[in-house]
């Protein structure tokens, strides 16, 4: 838990959106899905990434994995910049960084058997392995994620969602990567299966010394699995802190609203709760508000919020917040989820 595995510095991802009704040579609209995001991931650590839909969580993950072109910033992997590597080098790097997807069934090729699916990364990165070695490794990995190795010749559609996600995890882990990016791995599963998969991920992480980048919009799942949590809003990281610290003591008004929105599994407490609700919608990332992007919905917005873009500043040990007014926010009438009236 000491060495820095990966450092993302001022990463930006911009997509060109062709303008509707425009000519082929009309310059496309620029959509900045991720803007100057910086996160650090230590070896063996789990970093949770939360934010509402459209906040750029998945895009950030894909930029780290390398399936989305980066338009600015650096991704340092053990000190080496991964942005701008040749296609072949990026592919070779895939051995160290693997990904688990949101929709477990869609992430598996319907025409391949489970054995072929799980073996694919192995065959890609270790073409010299003999067939029996591959078979043994696939069987061992299937067992490790809690599937019968005898099921290798089955096809993905013959499995349940939870089993498919286990297959996806097996495929991600077969090359013994150092970082696994989990893009909402449990949000398509039902709650009892969610717990199984989350616990499986935790066990595997402990056994294999993995680092995890765990994306979710469900704060309770993220709190359960993460060491640290980063909160994203409209492509910007607005707050990062240790998991316990962030939940117990959120500084950014958006984080507070996010935590306040977590339902309490008790109707009585839920009804009695004072819950500040965020007004409005996520602004369009095609035309983000000036200055602080959250100011349009922020309960404590000040006139100067429209002028300067807030920097991510350390306010306590390991606790970074991108809001110059977060101290005022502490005084405002906002309370974290734990303090129920």
């Amino acid at each position, binding site marked *: 838990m000491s060495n820095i595995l990966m450092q993302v510095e001022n990463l930006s991802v911009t997509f060109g959106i062709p303008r509707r009704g425009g000519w082929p040579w009309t310059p496309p609209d620029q959509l900045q899905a991720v803007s100057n995001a910086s996160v650090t991931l230590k070896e063996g650590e789990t970093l949770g990434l939360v934010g509402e839909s459209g906040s750029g969580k998945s895009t950030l993950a*894909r930029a780290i*994995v*390398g*399936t989305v072109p980066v338009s600015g910033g650096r991704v340092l992997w053990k000190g080496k910049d991964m942005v701008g590597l040749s296609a072949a080098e*990026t*592919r*070779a*790097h*895939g*051995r160290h*960084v*693997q*990904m688990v*997807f*949101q*929709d477990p069934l*869609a*992430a*598996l*090729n*319907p*025409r*391949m*058997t*489970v*054995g*072929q699916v799980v*073996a*694919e*990364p192995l*065959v*890609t*990165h270790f073409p010299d392995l003999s*067939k*029996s070695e*591959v*078979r043994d490794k*696939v*069987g061992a990995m299937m067992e490790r994620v809690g599937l019968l*190795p*005898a*099921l*290798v*010749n*089955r*096809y993905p*559609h*013959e499995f349940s969602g939870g089993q498919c996600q286990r297959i*996806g995890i097996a*495929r991600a882990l077969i*090359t013994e990567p150092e970082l696994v990016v989990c893009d909402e791995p449990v949000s398509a599963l039902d709650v009892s299966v969610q717990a199984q998969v989350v616990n499986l991920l935790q066990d595997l992480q402990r056994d294999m010394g993995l680092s995890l980048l765990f994306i979710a919009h469900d704060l309770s799942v993220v709190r359960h699995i993460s060491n640290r949590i980063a909160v994203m809003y409209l492509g910007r990281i607005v707050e990062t802190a240790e998991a316990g610290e962030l939940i117990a003591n959120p500084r950014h008004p958006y984080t507070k609203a996010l935590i306040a929105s977590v339902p309490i599994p008790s109707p009585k407490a839920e009804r009695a709760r004072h819950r500040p609700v965020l007004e409005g919608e996520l602004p369009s990332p095609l035309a983000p508000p000036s200055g602080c992007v959250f100011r349009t919905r922020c309960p404590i917005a000040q006139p100067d919020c429209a002028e300067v873009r807030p920097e991510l500043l350390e306010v306590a040990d390991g606790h970074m917040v991108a809001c110059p007014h977060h101290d005022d926010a502490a005084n405002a009438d906002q309370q974290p989820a734990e303090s129920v009236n």
Partner: protein
Amino acid sequence: MLATRAIADQLAHKDAVKGRSLWADARTRFFRNKAAVGGLIVLLLVGLFALIGPFIAPWDYEEIDWSVLGRVAEAGRPSLETGHWFGTDPLGRDLFARTVQGTQISLMVGIVGAFIAVIVGTFYGAVAGYFGGRVDNVMMRIVDVLMSIPYMFVLILLLVVFGRSMLMLFIGIGLVSWLDMARIARGQTLTLRNKEFVEAAVATGVGPFTIILRHIVPNLLGVVIVYATLLVPSMIIYESFISFLGLGVQEPLTSWGALISEGSGEMVNGTLWMLLVPLFFFVVTLFGFFFVGDGLRDALDPKDR
């Protein structure tokens, strides 16, 4: 693809459970469809006819029965005694042997055309769709340009300039048959490319051509096979039209189109069998292909029903 498949075969332990692939499911659904199975049986019979016909025909397809010549309308009728089971053509050649020969040519033209379309069109479309952007634009504009050329005119020119031969016919058909297939394959690839399993392969570090072969093409095949079975009859019609114009295969070789053309010219003489026999095979085969294609579509894509 083969490597992983071979590995998966190896993976089959003695106690490994055998999975039901989507192909196996589709096969079951196909064989439950009576019209499709009927079409398949008809096609098999026509294929059998083309294959073993030459060995059972008492006459050769270019041999002239001099005893019939000049009185074809009376002596050239279909009969078991003379050995002309389907009658003779206006020159006294045995129509059974000629129909067998025409069936061979027509089926070959249809299957070769569809085969070229499947191979070239699928890969062309998959590459264009997978890489997207500028590559896609250039590749698909080439298809557009080729499509905008009136192909019948080009084929007729080809046959006139380079002489009538089977090779020219195949080249002409090959030139046009893959265009539609490329478009279909590209469209399908565009949706497949955004599927998560393709992204998973990209993230894993699988090379682009391996992804096309292993992940894109097998998932395209359903659509491609259906389209190919419908392409075979259209190629046969295409060739028949060329032959009907008198530009297709060269005498003494023949094809369904040439036979139908010949037969329709002789209708006034009361020798209807010359038209009806090749027409029967033509129609029956086309129906067979359409039913099989329909059945395949329902079997491979049950959601569309």
